[in-house]
């Protein structure tokens, strides 16, 4: 089981780092530029760029939107790999051998995704870093202004809120795609369909859970 968990960590977590880093860095930069371009009133302080970038990245972009992107990447990987095992009778082979196939296939994924908050932590850091680079090197704000903005009205609970959401999303990312892969019927075409359906349901569930958790934790 340990080997399986490490393999899932490699497939789901490590393999996702590249795309998460890339998207986070550039979207953080875009958030920063968009905020700067919309601050036309000279009375509004420049540090608001850093503040807005931090709030956007920590509260929503990193936990929620990266999770939706991961619903596409990790989710379709999970559904298609389990679905292919179903189609090619590999799951039947496990059952005939006396292996609890559901436990064997899904449990390591749930354990591996306990590391998902680290991915989101990296996303938060790179998002803000991208914002800082875009603001400073784009000439929209000084480094001091941006860093002041990052520190402005910092509420530590927002970090807790973001990671509570992340844990919930990790569970959704492990279970919904697994369900669609495990219980699929048919052939190769149905594996593709199951991956699409799984992405849609995972994304919808993440958005709904995000709304409910935000209502519960921040209001």
């Amino acid at each position, binding site marked *: 089981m340990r080997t399986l968990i490490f*393999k899932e960590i490699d497939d789901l977590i490590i393999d996702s780092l590249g795309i998460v880093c890339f998207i986070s860095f550039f979207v953080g930069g875009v958030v920063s530029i968009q905020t700067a371009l919309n601050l036309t009133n000279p009375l509004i302080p420049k540090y608001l760029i850093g503040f807005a970038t931090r709030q956007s990245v920590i509260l929503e972009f990193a936990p929620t939107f990266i999770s939706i992107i991961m619903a596409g990447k990790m989710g379709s990987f999970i559904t298609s790999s389990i679905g*292919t*095992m179903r189609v*090619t*009778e*590999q799951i*039947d*082979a496990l*059952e*005939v*051998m*006396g*292996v609890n196939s559901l436990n064997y296939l899904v449990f390591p994924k749930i354990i591996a995704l306990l590391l998902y908050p680290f991915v989101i932590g990296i996303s938060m850091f790179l998002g803000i870093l991208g914002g800082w680079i875009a603001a400073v090197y784009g000439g929209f704000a000084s480094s001091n202004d941006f860093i002041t903005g990052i520190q402005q009205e910092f509420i530590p609970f927002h970090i807790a809120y973001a990671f509570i959401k992340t844990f919930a999303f990790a569970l959704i990312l492990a279970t919904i795609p697994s369900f669609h892969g495990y219980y699929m019927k048919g052939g190769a075409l149905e594996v593709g369909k199951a991956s699409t359906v799984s992405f849609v349901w995972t994304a919808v569930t993440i958005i709904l859970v995000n709304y409910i958790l935000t209502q519960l934790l921040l209001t």
Partner: protein
Amino acid sequence: MIEVKNVEKSFGNAKVLKGVSTIFETGKTNLIIGQSGSGKTVLLKSLLGIHTPDKGTISFDGRIYSDLTPDEKRALRTEIGMVFQGSALFDSMTVEENVGFPLKMFTNKSTAEIKERVDFVIDRVDLKEAHHKKPSELSGGMQKRVAIARAIVNNPKYLFCDEPNSGLDPKTSIIIDNLIHEITVEYNITTVINTHDMNSVMEIGEKIIFLKKGILAWEGTKKDIFKTDNEAITDFVYSSNLFKKIRKAQNKEE
């Protein structure tokens, strides 16, 4: 020995097995034959415990499957080896890992003992060069051999094969048939093969049961096929021109 008594199985309104009774003998290759939709796969899946019969019993050397506790069922499953139609090898594992999988999961053997046993069975199915290859790097015939190696690695008492020759050329089919037969005799296994390949029937059919629309329409040996007047089995076998000619030739000789 596996004893099937009056097994019935329906899916919705469709009655697929209609009171099948037979005995699969130990140390022999027992073949289930019949047209597509005759209930062969459902019978095989019922034997494997994947389907639960609506009526009747299946007993493995006196142990009635439906009467066993979950732990006893799990223990019985470790005595079963299965070769699936598409081989069902685990894509992410090498040949060696695939074959060693049942030993890792169900025995307390050390890594060295597992390696020794895995090497032995891989050699037994004549795949010495393929230890570290992934299933995708193997031909269909080699995949079938790996599947056989995985099925026998834990010294099963019962070996089930679902269409072991599907997708294979005639020469490889004969090699696979003979390998299954040799293993059956060598390890005194109760082997049940689900097939509609008449070449297999003539090659290794020590006991043949013929299903037609969920009913056991005929049973006998490969020699009996040429002598029987049973219309159901003759219709099935002699739909092939090759077998018509063989029968004519045999009848002339007699």
